[in-house]
């Protein structure tokens, strides 16, 4: 089959590379969302841990006083 | 060895009910062929089409058998028994594989003559076809037993089994169909290049027999 003229061929080549980039971008976006969620939960747990620390040191002060 | 024989005997007698199933197999084969006759709108077949119809029918029968292969073990704790007995777990896989092969051979013994009577103009290619079907059955047995055991402990096992099994069987289908195409050709069977397909089937059988042998212990262990 004869080769397509450049302006026709260009579209297909572009489409192929764009499909690849879109897939990559979607994957990166999903990963970014996952990591953001992990970060957020880490933040929540860190607060939880700090709150407990404060309680415990608060209790110690009461006992000591 | 005796464990292998015991499991095999039990399976042939009870689970697959091979001899008792012969009438049912004949019925299944005839009905499937009738469906193909109308589905393809052909009343005689040759070459690739003939091979395809025959192999598809055998594949259907294989799927039915694979789904039933580990029923007893699953429901009555057969896996536990194998684990506790001082027996190589591989004996279970080997027995199941051979049971499946025997079941398929019995099915083909019934289905192929009916197929020839329904669709073929000449029976000349049937003899060598047996060699191809035999090698295909060995591959079906090895892979079928392995996949069936994986699916046995899963939910939706009747779906997962065939789902995983079918892509694995594509090389068997390719080689058998190509061989059958030559043997059932309209102008009479041709034997040139047949060795290639037999070789692929043999390679497939050896590969998956080796794999089943190597990994089955891990399927059984708890």
């Amino acid at each position, binding site marked *: 089959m004869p080769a397509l003229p450049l302006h026709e061929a260009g579209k297909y080549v572009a489409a192929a590379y764009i499909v690849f980039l879109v897939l990559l971008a979607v994957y990166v976006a999903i990963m970014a969302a996952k990591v953001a969620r992990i970060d957020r939960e880490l933040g929540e747990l860190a607060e939880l841990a700090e709150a407990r620390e404060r309680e415990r040191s608060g209790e110690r002060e009461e006992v000591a006083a | 060895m005796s464990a292998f024989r015991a499991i095999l005997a039990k399976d042939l007698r009870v689970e697959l009910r091979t001899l008792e199933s012969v009438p049912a197999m004949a019925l299944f084969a005839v009905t499937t062929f009738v469906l193909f006759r109308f589905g393809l709108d052909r009343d005689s077949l040759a070459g690739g089409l003939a091979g395809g119809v025959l192999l598809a029918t055998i594949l259907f029968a294989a799927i039915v058998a694979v789904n039933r292969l580990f029923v007893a073990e699953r429901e009555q704790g057969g896996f536990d028994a194998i684990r506790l007995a001082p027996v190589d777990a591989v004996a279970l896989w080997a027995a199941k594989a051979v049971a499946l092969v025997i079941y398929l051979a019995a099915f083909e013994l019934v289905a192929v003559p009916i197929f020839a009577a329904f669709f073929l103009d000449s029976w000349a290619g049937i003899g060598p076809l047996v060699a191809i079907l035999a090698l295909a059955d060995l591959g079906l047995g090895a892979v079928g037993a392995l996949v069936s055991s994986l699916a046995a402990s899963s939910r939706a096992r009747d779906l*997962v089994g065939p789902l995983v099994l079918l892509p694995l069987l*594509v090389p068997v289908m390719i080689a058998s169909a190509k061989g059958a195409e030559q043997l059932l050709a309209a102008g009479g069977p041709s034997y040139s290049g047949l060795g290639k397909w037999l070789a692929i089937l043999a390679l497939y059988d050896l590969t998956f027999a080796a794999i089943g042998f190597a990994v089955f212990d891990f*399927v059984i262990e708890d």
Partner: protein
Amino acid sequence: MKVPSVPSPRTTAIAAVALLAAGYSLVFFYAPNDADQGFIQKIFYLHVPLAICALLGFILAGIHSIRHLQTGDAKHDARSYVSIHISVIFGVAVLATGAIWARASWGKWWVWQEPTLVSFLIVFLLYCTYYPLRYAIADRDRQARYASVFAITAGAFVPLNFVAVRLAQPLVHPRVFATANGGLPASMLFTFLVCLAAMALLWITLVRFELAAKSSAGRLRRLRRALDGDLGLAGGSRIAPAVPPRAAGPS
């Protein structure tokens, strides 16, 4: 004694991006046009490296699974799962770019006459069944073991399948994707190798990031359990294996 360390995920990522940029610059500014296919052939530099990396990834997953069964260490199962996962994603790209290439050079969106594309489809279909298989097994240990059995079986299947499909092609039919009648000229070969290396680095980068994310999610769950006693939001996926600490390697 200084132990050589594996480059960090960030380094691999940067190297991957750099090499991808270099490779595709070569594709469009250096490599000559193919005599037969013309400009369409440029897809070759994208499609084939993707396919090779996906297939090697599947085989690598089989190797991880062998180690998993040998050692019982869950980190090998995690590596196997992630390798298959990334390779399946690459597989989607292979089939999409292959279809575009087929449409451009043959007029149809799919051609059965191209044996490598057809074999790849079969392999892709097989590995797609990996997810329902894992999903259907509730017990974690058994799920991991059976997944490894599957990955080993499927890994052995890949070469066998390619041989079978290739032999099924009649010799007279021209390969749709045949590039140049007698091997690639040096400039094309060089460009191809750079693109292949870039894709391999990309694959490795994605695998390492996925493993790192799993490892963090696992640590998060353990932390939450230690603090809270309940799992809250991070209940964990039913099928994606949990990565034990430090399974992702030095980071």
